[in-house]
């Protein structure tokens, strides 16, 4: 497939914004500015960038606890994302959600779900609600291959297929559920087989190739939006960093990590664009600097943002104040 230059550079910019955000988040975690659990997305950027490029602005997105990149590409400002990770008032949830719980009603981003598989039924429901109201939206739900062992996986795929709901199931198969390899935890290691068993058409794609991801996502989203019922995409990818900042990473060989690093989705895409004459040094530098400037501004915003007043703590429990 020949690449449209402007669009290709946009894909590259998307991945580099995520990469920069995550690298800074790791540093800020070491500096103890960000606490709690922090799950980084470094290595998996092509999945969010490729799939989200294939969605319309009004399409609901449901993500997991590794969702900073999805939030950023869905239009939550880096300021609001960073301030939320700092636990500051300027965060998208005023510090109540943190890294694992980013939401935005305006962008229809519904998670930030930190229970593995917990977002799958919600995605089916969003699709049901949109369908019942005559909207042509497609709900995209991101989840890891570890979710395929949860009951909600088969339950939600069954429901979506039974009711022909417009859901795109996006399995980010990075081979490890926390520290447990797929082969150590699931009898059927081909998640597409599991999806097809519920009547959902499924295909596997190289999740380190942003163009392949977007191409597959566009094709599948068109089918779903056209009333074809749910679809399932498995994207083979890898997280270069540990599961979370607490993870000593004893469960996988360094050689394996190194082998996957050679397939870095950003490095590969940059090389391809250079080969095809679509990217020069100056343009690349411009994209890098743009991403860096955006994230540095977000860090400054988060630093300067005040702490949420504990007097407001009980707000947002119910729509109206309720005395328990």
């Amino acid at each position, binding site marked *: 497939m020949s690449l449209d230059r402007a669009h290709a550079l946009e894909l590259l910019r998307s991945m580099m914004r995520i990469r920069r955000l995550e690298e800074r988040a790791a540093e800020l975690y070491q500096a103890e500015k960000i606490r709690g659990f922090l799950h980084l997305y470094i290595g998996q950027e092509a999945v969010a960038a490729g799939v989200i490029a294939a969605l319309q602005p009004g399409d609901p997105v449901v993500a997991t606890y590794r969702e900073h990149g999805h939030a950023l590409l869905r239009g939550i400002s880096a300021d609001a994302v960073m301030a939320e990770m700092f636990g500051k008032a300027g965060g998208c949830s005023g510090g*109540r959600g943190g890294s694992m719980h980013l939401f935005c009603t305006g962008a229809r981003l*519904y998670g930030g779900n930190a229970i593995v598989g917990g977002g799958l*039924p919600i995605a089916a429901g969003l699709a*049901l609600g949109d369908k019942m109201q005559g909207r042509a939206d497609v709900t995209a739900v991101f989840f890891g291959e570890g979710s395929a062992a949860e009951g909600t996986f088969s339950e939600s795929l069954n429901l979506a297929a039974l009711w022909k709901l417009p859901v795109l199931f996006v399995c980010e198969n990075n081979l490890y559920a926390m520290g447990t390899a797929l082969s150590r935890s699931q009898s059927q290691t081909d998640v597409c087989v599991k999806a097809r068993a519920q009547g959902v058409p499924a295909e596997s794609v190289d999740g380190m190739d942003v163009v392949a991801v977007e191409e597959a996502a566009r094709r599948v989203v068109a089918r779903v939006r056209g009333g074809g019922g749910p679809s399932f995409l498995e994207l083979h990818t890898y997280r270069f960093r540990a599961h979370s900042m607490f993870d000593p990473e004893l469960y996988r060989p360094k050689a394996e990590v190194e082998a996957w690093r050679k397939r870095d989705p950003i490095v590969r895409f940059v090389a391809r664009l250079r080969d095809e004459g679509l990217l020069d040094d100056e343009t690349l530098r411009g994209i890098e600097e743009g991403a860096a400037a955006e994230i540095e501004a977000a860090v400054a915003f988060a630093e300067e943002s005040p702490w949420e007043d504990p007097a407001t703590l009980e707000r947002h429990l119910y729509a109206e104040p309720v005395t328990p």
Partner: protein
Amino acid sequence: MSTTRRITYREAVREALREALQRDPRVFLMGEDVGAYGGCFAVSKGLLAEFGEERIRDTPLSEAAFVGAGIGAALAGMRPIVEVMTVNFALLALDQIVNNAALLRHMSGGQLGVPLVIRMATGPGRQLAAQHSHSLEGWLAHIPGLKVAVPATLEDARGMLAAALADPDPVLLFESIRLYPTAGDLAVDAGAVPLEGAAVRRPGRDVSLVTYGGALPRVLEAAGQLAGRGVEAEVLDLRCLRPLDTHAILASVTKTRRAVVIDEGWRSGSLAAEVSARIMENAFYELDAPVARVCSLEVPVPYARHLEEATLPTVERIVAAVEEMGIGHG
């Protein structure tokens, strides 16, 4: 002249469902057996023929999926009513109820509201044994972000659903298995009632009997027996377990100076424990006797009729608890 008609609790719930479906196109009902079967407890009988498969949805046996789908549909702007057959089955959906429905508004800093109604049957009384008979509404009343309402009368069975649907937050409605077949007179024009706030079902001056849900008829019967012995018991129906109407509890206890809390849940960690603690915290010096509790025995509900009955707060146990307070003997 007020006109009433004879109606069962089951029919009152069905009327409320029908009215909700007629009034708002965003409302739909989904759950196990709600459609073709007519509802496991025959509550939704006839609604499929009337409203069609789009709005009366039979679901797979997938509690987590269809409760979660209810949350998603609510987020997308619908007003789903999800029926989970019994509270025991709701345990399979507890993740969605507790980790999503209850938490999303707060975790999102007020961005996401979940206007969802979940109905389920609760309590013993039909010889359904341990896995279909438990009273776990007190557990769910522990969770901030949920509202937990328990219609114990025909008026509430008819009127609480509309209020629950009008609420912008998730509301759990617990319907007592034992109450479904009970009949009484209900005003022809009975409609919505507030979801929150306790109600005095029988005024009295000597002791407050604080209860809710399926226990209410027994408590009223006990109050009747006590009246025959010269004890005027006030019966307070909590109606809503979260938020709990502390004000009404204290108003009653301050008047009567004695309280017995009757709860079909198990005693340890029960809602009765919470009510008792609130009385102690706020009205200790008003009391003439320690707060007493009559709860279900702490065993799984057994199958045999006489054993099941023996686990319950019976009229005899309620009357005995009041008599032990030293009133009614002159």
